[in-house]
């Protein structure tokens, strides 16, 4: 162990990219006003101060607490936020009495960035989260199903995914994404071996044992409940997809995604057969012009993107306001209209880069929990962006998910920033140069004691196999010993002194 591999801190790179990202967001904002009124916006110094201040504070907190964190995640997120804010502001200007939702969104951005900073300051080591597997699982499920509670849940635009607290409404599923990725990661760290190894083989595919199917079936049922009672396709798809992908990452068995896809197809087909809202979504996907009034939103988004063409109409010069809900679900269509396909592809690539950085952290991570957590966070973003952008561009049926960091909405912004905070913490721990603690398998074998075989069972003979069997098992598996309720043997009673060492053939000389 002479050298260890670490990564450079690269905080200077982060600062530079952050300035670039903020400048692009502000550039969009200024261009809107230049294109529409041929003059600079009146409040431009405030906008510059606000965005730069947020970027500066988060950068300083990261520099202070997470010096080795990934240098690209924060600039990418700030750029998406800047573009989203500019586009919301542009849509504000398009309505007849000019709205001020961009200011509100900026306030939410401040709160979200503050939440991210607090997380970074108070939780430097993500591994403590591993201890609360089932608490997290229950909390996530509760959050997911909270809108079904009568009196608390709120139905908006046909989906019951909101709860209202006083004057504010909140989407608990946004927070559930993060909580459940942590829960899945720590659950799979414990169970991945049994999920990967046990089970029979059918048609060349390793199938898991029926009793290990419990968790995936529970997730499937909860996803179906979300689909049926909350009428929310996107959330349902997101959570089931996340769970299946994490199972695949943890076990490396292709049978899980195959099984998951089959279950998903079955659930989707049942949903299509029995529920009107699913049929509406499918018909507006495959054949939107059959019912112009019903599919008005999807059709307008298509027209908008077509109107934009390759390079767009330019900031502030299109008519994205014609699409209903352009600030939330259809903000990508507004981007496609004003920045063109070139801009929309760039935005997609920005999301892709965030996902790639998350998967990169997962590859480099040394401990299984960090690996699974980073992969889970990356998959949450990937599935969500795929589902909503696919819906807007009519690649998939439209699902009512938010576009992370860009859509208007406080709960989504806060949840996504906290998720990014956690990802930064993971990348910091992962990229920090640390003396390698994991033993090479060869070293493990050499260090392991030769199997002890008790001869002449004394008063407290050691349990055969209990001592050596668990030593070689990996970090993820629970120790086998605590299961046996035999009175613990302590060396004072002469219990675990090796009675006799029997050399196995092929053992050490």
């Amino acid at each position, binding site marked *: 162990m002479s050298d*260890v591999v670490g990564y*450079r801190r690269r905080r200077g790179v982060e600062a530079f990219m952050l300035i670039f990202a903020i400048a692009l967001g502000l550039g969009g904002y200024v261009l809107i006003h230049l294109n529409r009124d041929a003059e600079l916006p009146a409040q431009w110094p405030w906008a510059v101060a606000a965005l730069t201040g947020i970027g500066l504070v988060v950068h300083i907190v990261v520099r202070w607490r997470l010096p080795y964190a990934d240098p690209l995640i924060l600039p990418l997120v700030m750029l998406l936020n800047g573009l989203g804010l500019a586009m919301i502001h542009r849509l504000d200007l398009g309505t007849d009495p000019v709205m001020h939702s961009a200011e509100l969104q900026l306030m939410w951005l401040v709160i979200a960035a503050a939440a991210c900073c607090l997380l970074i300051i108070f939780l430097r080591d993500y591994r403590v989260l591993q201890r609360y597997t089932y608490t997290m699982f229950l909390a996530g499920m509760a959050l997911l199903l909270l809108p079904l509670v009568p009196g608390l849940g709120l139905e908006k635009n046909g989906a019951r995914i909101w709860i209202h607290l006083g004057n504010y409404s909140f989407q608990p599923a946004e927070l559930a994404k993060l909580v459940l990725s942590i829960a899945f990661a720590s659950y799979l760290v414990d169970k991945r071996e049994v999920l990967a190894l046990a089970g029979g083989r059918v048609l060349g595919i390793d199938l898991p044992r029926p009793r290990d199917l419990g968790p995936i079936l529970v997730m499937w049922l909860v996803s179906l409940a979300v689909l049926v009672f909350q009428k929310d396709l996107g959330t349902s798809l997101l959570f089931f997809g996340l769970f299946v992908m994490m199972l695949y990452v943890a076990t490396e068995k292709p049978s899980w995604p195959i099984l998951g896809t089959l279950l998903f197809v079955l659930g989707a087909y049942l949903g299509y057969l029995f529920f009107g809202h699913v049929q509406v979504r499918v018909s507006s996907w495959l054949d939107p012009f059959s019912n112009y009034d019903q599919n008005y939103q999807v059709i307008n988004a298509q027209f908008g993107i077509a109107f934009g063409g390759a390079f767009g109409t330019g900031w502030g010069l299109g008519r994205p306001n014609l699409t209903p809900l352009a600030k939330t679900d259809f903000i990508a269509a507004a981007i496609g209209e004003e920045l063109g396909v070139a801009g929309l592809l760039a935005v997609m690539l920005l999301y892709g880069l965030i996902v790639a950085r998350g998967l990169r952290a997962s590859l480099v991570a040394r401990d299984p929990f960090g690996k699974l957590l980073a992969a889970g966070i990356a998959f949450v973003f990937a599935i969500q962006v795929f589902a909503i952008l696919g819906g807007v561009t009519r690649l998939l049926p439209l699902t009512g998910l938010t576009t992370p960091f860009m859509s208007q909405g406080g709960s989504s912004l806060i949840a996504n920033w906290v998720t990014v905070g956690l990802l930064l913490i993971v990348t910091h721990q992962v990229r920090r*140069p640390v003396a390698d603690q994991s033993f090479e398998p060869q070293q493990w074998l050499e260090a392991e004691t030769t199997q002890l075989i008790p001869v002449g069972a004394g008063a407290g003979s050691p349990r055969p196999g209990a001592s050596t069997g668990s030593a070689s098992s990996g970090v993820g598996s629970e120790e086998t*010993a605590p299961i046996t309720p035999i009175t613990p043997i302590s060396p004072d009673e002469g219990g675990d002194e090796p009675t006799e060492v029997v050399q196995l053939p092929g053992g050490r000389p």
Partner: protein
Amino acid sequence: MSELVVLGLKLGFLALLWLFILFTGNVIRTDLFGRKVPAAELVAQPASGAAPAPNQPRLSRRALKQLPHTLTVTHGKQAGLQLPLEGGVLIGRSSDCQLLLDDDYVSTRHARITLSAGGYQVEDLGSTNGTFVNNQRLTQPTPFGPGDTLRIGRTLMIVEK
């Protein structure tokens, strides 16, 4: 503004957007391979001890100075191993432990040393084979200072100033 200026600004903005992505690509390229650090540079840094015990009580600077600050393994396979206490150490075989013991009789998360108002304490985390201070099996968090011997499995540990 003239059409031409609008077009120029539009294309300029898109060009800068894609330039940002190119810069990102370049950062990723230069970041692909880590940098080798000689292990000797890392000695000052605890292996994975970035997280002190969550509810670490605030002690005065003076009281902190009088506390022991090194945990030393005296017997067992890893004899000679030293570890800074730094407010708390989790001992076991799981990768999230600060002290990873290579010992067949150690549980995944075996015991925890925490800093309390009166000094360091050892607490057994429901281990199979127990945790012993001065050959007394722990049933509750027990103070642990210089002169005491901590035994976990077949590994003996002491704290030093």
